[in-house]
């Protein structure tokens, strides 16, 4: 046994059960929720528990006793003896070394666990397909232990389970950093596999990443080293067996900017440098190829009568005057004609519907005139997103910058990315044989696209639901993040195998999504520090309070 800290107390009001137990401990011993303790049990077995609640009690029968004990409210009163007090701790049973789950007995000794015990108890030992996902810190002072934690990659990027959802308030929760930490770990794992390919049986297993940059320059230097990485962080990376080098094989897709207006927060010189290194490209939308994507502009428009859908079908099928149109300006002109009274004999689509359609499309195209262009010039590194995704290679990371675009345009680009990946995996874009087996998509601010309040027929919502429900078998994995998990569509979060909860607020915790989380852990969620997550994954026997180091790639001040 490790350091003894107390004994089991099974009392009338709080008996030990199959699920949990209570023990008393010295009031000065520092323990924390999520710490693992072990208990001597019958047949020389060991029961492991994870701490859920810690309470301090004295023998004072009421607050009044305390008041009276200070000479009826004299704050200066002193006493020779402090009231007898102790801490009692509620722990949840998570494992038994002999699979004995009868309740632990009163008076059994409780001790701290060592690294091996913790690994066994939390299901962290002998993990197949290990993928570093952070580290655990337990106990305090001389007893402190630190150990790396690994996911079984089959349970986060398939085939057993897929999709990760990260939630937490902005700024402190560092959702993007955690997602990128995992992506770094995955990429390194697959790059190592690549090197050992000859030894690997599953040579087809490969992965690629598509990441959307939604804020400032957050993800626009993934391939540049973080010179400010501290020694402490470096040691943690070493413990986790992850190199401190930045991510590799990164391509950046910036929205095309004209001379007059910039559509990105990235420095134009940096972009130029990246272009010269064949790392950066500028994306455009060309009418001929992308007219079918117009539906993405309607992702937040309620179309219960399906008139918008009728118009979209009308245009996609080149019906009416939309036949033989090549450019966006022509399209807008024809559209304008349809908005004139008596311009069409089609009775199914009213002029009012055409006008509504025109208003939405015209606003989107006119405010992003440089992106909705006539053609791409490959020599100038101008591309279509779909074409880039079509050619995505294993271990490649494509960063699509949408940070400076307006909300509707962001949705349009995200929808395009999602659908392009979906079509690629369905074999509709390319017959290539070396399409990566898994494509991981990371999107922050998922609430914009898969909100509970999104229209039911939103094409983006439909795509996201499709990915979360069927993506695992297709090899499309969604890593998503948002501030408030409760705002996300139930079918989307319900299909995520892993959840990471960062710091959030008390209002959010009161929502139904957090009901299954023990009360004390809920409280902890409002106090989590930066770089700290409460993680749920099917292979762990309990929720884990994980920490992770600062990112290995360059961090810009103020984004």
């Amino acid at each position, binding site marked *: 046994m490790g350091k003894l800290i107390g004994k089991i107390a099974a009392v009338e009001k709080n008996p030990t059960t199959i699920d949990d137990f209570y023990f008393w401990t010295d009031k000065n011993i520092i323990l924390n929720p999520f710490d693992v303790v072990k208990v001597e049990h019958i047949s020389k077995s060991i029961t492991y528990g994870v701490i859920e609640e810690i309470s301090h009690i004295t*023998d*004072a029968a*009421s607050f009044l*006793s305390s008041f009276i*004990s*200070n000479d009826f409210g004299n704050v200066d009163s002193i*006493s*020779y*003896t402090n009231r007898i007090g102790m801490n009692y701790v509620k722990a949840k049973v998570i494992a038994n070394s002999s699979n004995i789950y009868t309740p632990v007995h009163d008076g059994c000794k409780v001790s701290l666990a060592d690294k091996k015990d913790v690994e066994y108890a939390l299901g962290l030992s002998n993990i197949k397909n290990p993928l570093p996902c952070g580290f655990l810190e337990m106990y305090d002072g001389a007893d402190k232990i630190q150990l790396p934690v690994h996911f079984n990659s089959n349970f986060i990027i398939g085939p057993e389970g897929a999709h990760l959802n990260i939630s937490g308030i902005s700024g402190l929760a560092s959702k993007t950093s955690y997602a990128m930490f995992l992506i770094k770990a995955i990429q390194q794992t697959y790059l190592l596999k690549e090197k050992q390919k000859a030894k690997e049986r599953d040579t087809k297993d490969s992965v690629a990443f598509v990441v959307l940059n939604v804020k400032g320059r957050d993800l626009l230097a993934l391939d540049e080293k973080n010179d400010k990485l501290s020694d402490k962080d470096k040691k943690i990376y070493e413990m986790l067996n992850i190199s401190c080098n930045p991510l590799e094989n990164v391509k950046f897709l910036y929205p095309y900017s004209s001379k007059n207006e910039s559509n990105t927060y990235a420095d134009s010189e940096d972009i130029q440098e990246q272009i010269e290194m064949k790392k950066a490209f500028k994306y455009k939308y060309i009418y001929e190829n992308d007219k079918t994507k117009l539906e993405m502009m309607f992702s937040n428009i309620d179309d219960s009568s399906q008139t918008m859908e009728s118009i979209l079908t009308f245009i996609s099928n080149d019906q009416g005057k939309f036949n033989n149109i090549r450019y966006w300006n022509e399209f807008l002109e024809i559209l304008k004609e349809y908005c004139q009274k008596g311009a069409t004999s089609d009775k199914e689509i009213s002029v009012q519907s055409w006008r509504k359609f025109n208003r939405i499309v015209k606003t989107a195209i006119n405010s992003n005139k440089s992106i909705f262009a006539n053609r791409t010039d490959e020599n100038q590194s101008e591309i279509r997103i779909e074409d880039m995704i079509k050619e995505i290679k294993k271990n490649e990371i494509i960063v699509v910058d949408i940070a400076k675009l307006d909300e509707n345009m962001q949705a349009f680009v995200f929808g395009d990315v999602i659908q392009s990946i979906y079509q690629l995996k369905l074999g509709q874009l390319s017959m290539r044989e070396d399409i990566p087996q898994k494509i991981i998509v990371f999107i922050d601010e998922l609430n914009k696209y898969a909100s509970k309040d999104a229209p039911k027929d939103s094409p983006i919502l439909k795509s996201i639901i499709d990915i979360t429900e069927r993506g695992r078998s297709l090899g499309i994995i969604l890593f998503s993040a948002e501030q408030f998990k409760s705002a996300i569509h139930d079918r989307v979060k319900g299909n995520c195998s892993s959840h990471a909860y960062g710091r959030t607020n008390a209002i959010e915790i009161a929502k139904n999504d957090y009901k299954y989380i023990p009360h004390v852990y809920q409280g902890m969620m409002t106090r989590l520090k930066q770089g700290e997550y409460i993680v749920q994954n099917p292979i762990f026997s309990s929720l884990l309070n994980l920490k992770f180091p600062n990112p290995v790639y360059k961090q810009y001040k103020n984004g």
Partner: protein
Amino acid sequence: MNKILNFFEDKIPNCKCYKTYKFCFDTKEYPTSDYNDHKDFKVRKSGETEKHDSYISLEKRMKSEITSLFRFFLDGSRRTYKVDDIAIGNRVFPIIAGQIGVGCCERVDKDTFKPIKLENGLVVSIPECSDKDGSDKYFFNNLLMKLNELSFLKQKNLEFKKILTYRDSKTYENDQYENLAIAKIQDEMIQQEKEVVKSLVREKLINQDSYLLKDGSLEYSEKGVEDKSFRLSLIKSNYQHVVGVSKSFNPELCDDGKTKSMAKKIAELPLYSRTPAFLLEPNIIQDVKFCVWYVRIRDIKRTISPFDGIVKIEKILIKDNEMRNGLESEDVDMISANICNERNPVAYGSDKRWANHLYPVFLTESYIKSKYLSDIYYLNLF
């Protein structure tokens, strides 16, 4: 089941157990005539070196007593049970079982309070006539030995410490026999208290800087003491650094020689004050003099009766000059101030006697009681 009763029926000649209803007497201790205040308590002499006519305020002294004089706390407790009525010959006697606990706790510092001694034991009190010949001095020892050999007791790792016998030579009513039987258990508890004090002295734990505070009176009657070596007169030197503090007392029994009763004076004792100390020479304890005084530790405004919040303090006079002149008034003040400083925390809500209780004593008592077998468990051994 009734295993112990079957054993008695089997081993005590010509007896019959009725297997009557078993119950625990009120767990609250009640004094027998052999204990606590004595009816012949007449105080006429001063018990301290300085003569005082009125109350002595302790407030100044309390502030100067930064560290406590008391390091050890002793309490004795017993719980008694009527387990059966037994017919021996033509008479019916009660069998009274008991659990005795005597414990001493040490206050190492403000936050560390730990037990250092615990004497607990199971006893049973039966009439003397259980030994039919009345001359076999080994009868009850043999009976105890055989009782402890019962397999079910061994399985449970239980052992009876003594079989006590109460006098049955006179004819009493049944409940008077019960009182006699309980008194025997009480005497046994007192005996154990004395043994604990003796061991503390032997281990040199108590001294002028580390006093022992004993819950209750020190006026141990010598009437029930079978082992002569435990007579208070012979062991009083053990009590040089021991102070007895009683939560309850009969104020009417105290007479200062001028008026009939001191009850009014005691009742009107101001907060953090003491009465003058009196010399007490109980008739029932030969050659032992006590210094006795009263201290108010709670404001009368906060208590439900005038005697709530007052404790009675006793100290055995040991040295020759103490026997002649009484206890040094300086010592009386020091002890009193320390007792006042022990007033917090309180056991309000946990013990009805909170106003008179001292917290370390309350803890010691709680510790002893926590070591008792549960009433149902114990009763079902019989």
